[in-house]
C-alpha cells in the first residue's frame, strides 16, 4: 500500500490530468466533435471517481496521524510547564534556604551565648 506522500503525489498528478482533460473536452465540444467529447467525458467521469476515492484515502492518512501529534504536543506542553514550575520552585527553595540560614544564625547565637 503506498505511503501518504505517494498518495498525495498521485492525487496531484491526477488532478492535473483531469484539469487538462476538461480543457480538451471543451475544445472538442466547441469544435463540434460531440462523439469524441462524450468518449473523453466518460473517461473523465472515471477519473473523477478515482480522484474522489483517493481524496478520501489521503484524508484518512492525515487523520490517522492526528492522535500521535496530539500526544506529542501534549508531552511538549507538559515539559514546558514542568520548567515553569521548576523555576517557581527554585524561588521557593531560595526562600527556604534563607529561612534555614536564619535558623543556623540563631543556633550560632545561642551557642555564642552559652560559651
Amino acid at each position, binding site marked *: 500500500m503506498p505511503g501518504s506522500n505517494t498518495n498525495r503525489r498521485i492525487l496531484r498528478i491526477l488532478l492535473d490530468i483531469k484539469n487538462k482533460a*476538461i480543457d480538451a473536452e471543451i475544445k472538442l465540444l466547441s469544435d463540434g466533435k460531440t462523439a469524441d467529447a462524450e468518449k473523453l467525458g466518460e473517461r473523465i467521469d472515471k477519473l473523477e471517481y478515482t480522484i474522489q476515492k483517493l481524496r478520501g484515502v489521503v484524508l484518512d492518512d492525515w*487523520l490517522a496521524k492526528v492522535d500521535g501529534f496530539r500526544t506529542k*504536543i501534549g508531552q*511538549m*506542553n507538559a515539559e514546558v510547564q514542568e520548567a515553569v514550575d521548576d523555576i517557581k520552585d527554585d524561588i521557593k527553595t*531560595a526562600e527556604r534556604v534563607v529561612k534555614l540560614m536564619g535558623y543556623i544564625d540563631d543556633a550560632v547565637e545561642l551557642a555564642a551565648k552559652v560559651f
Partner: protein
Amino acid sequence: MKIESKGRQFCHFVFLVVTSTLTNKEKNMKSFKNCNTEKCKSIIIRPGSSVKKRQTSMSILGVLLTVLLPSCANVDRQPFTEFNNAAYEITTIDNAVDSHILSVKQREMAEISMDLLTINNLALDFDVDDLYKYEYKFVRAAKEPLFIKLHRLNSGLTDLNALFIEYTSLLAALADDELIAPEDFDQLSSELNNNLRSGLKSLGQGADASRLALFSTVANSAAHAYISNKRKGYLIDIIEGNQKTVDALIAHAQEAIENIRNGVLDEYDRSRRTLMEQFEAGGNKETIAYKFLMNSEITAATFDMLKAMNDTYASLAKTHKKIGTSLKNDQLPSVNELKGLIKNVQKRIKVLKKINEKADRKEEIAAKRASS
C-alpha cells in the same frame, strides 16, 4: 528532552554556598587576620565574636555568589509573545475550510440523494449491548462522505493548532520576567537582612546598614542571575529538543492545507464541467460565463489564502528554530518575517470573504431573476 529534577541544581548551589561559608569560617578568619586594608579592618568588629564570623561568612558568600554567577542571562519576552500571537492567527484557516466543506457537502448530498441505498448510509447503527453506542452506516460500508472527513480534518487541525498555541503561550510564560519577578528576590533579601539584624540585635550590636545593603544586592542579583540563567537554559533545551516535533507538526498542518487545495481544485473542475454541460444544454450563456468567472475568482482567492497560510506555517517552524539559536547566541531574534506573513494571511482572508460575499449576492440576484 529530560528536564533536570525540580530545584536540584539550585538547592545544590545554595547549599554549597551555605556550607562553604560555615565550614570555612576558620580559614576565612585567618585570611582576614592577615588583611591590612581599611576595608578588611572595618569588617572586624570585635575579634573572635560571632558577629565578626557572620560578617566574614557573608562576605565570602557574596564573593562566591559573584564569582559563580558572573553574568545575568536576560531573556526578552517579545519574540515569544510575537510567536504566540502568530500561532494564534493561524487558526483563522477555519474560515477557508468551512466554505470549502460547505461546497463539497452540497455537491455530495446532491449525489447521495439520487439513490435510496446511499441515502440510508447516512443513517445510524446501534448496539444492543452498549446502550448509548451508535455508528453511521457509511463507516461500516467504508463510504464516509468527503465532507465528513473534511469536518474531521478541520477539528483535528483546530485541536493541533490549539495545542501548539498552548505550547507557544507556555514558552512566553517561561520567558516572562514576571516568572522571576524582582519583588520575589527583594523579599528574599529583606528576609536575609531581617535574620541578620535580629542576630546582631540579640548580641548587642547595631546593624551596619551599608554592609547589609551590599549583602542584599549581591545575594539578590546572584540568585536572580542564577534563576535567569537556568530559565534561559530551559528555553534553549526545550526549543532545541522540540524542533523535530514542531517541524513534523508544521509539515502535518501544511499537508492539511495541501489536502484542502486539492479538494478545492477538484471541486472547481467539477463545477467547470457542470457549467459546460449547462452551456451545451442551452443554458443562459451570459450567466454561465459569469459563473465561470466567479468560480475562478473564488478559487484564485482561496489559493492565495492557502499559500499565505502555508508560508506562515513554514515561517513558524523557522522562527521557532531562530528563537532558540538567537537565545543561545545572546541575540535578539527577528520575528518581522512572521509578522509580515500574518498580515498577508489576514489580507487574503479579507479578500476571500469579499469575493464570497460578492458571489453570494450575484447568486441571490440570479435566483430572483430566475423565479420572476
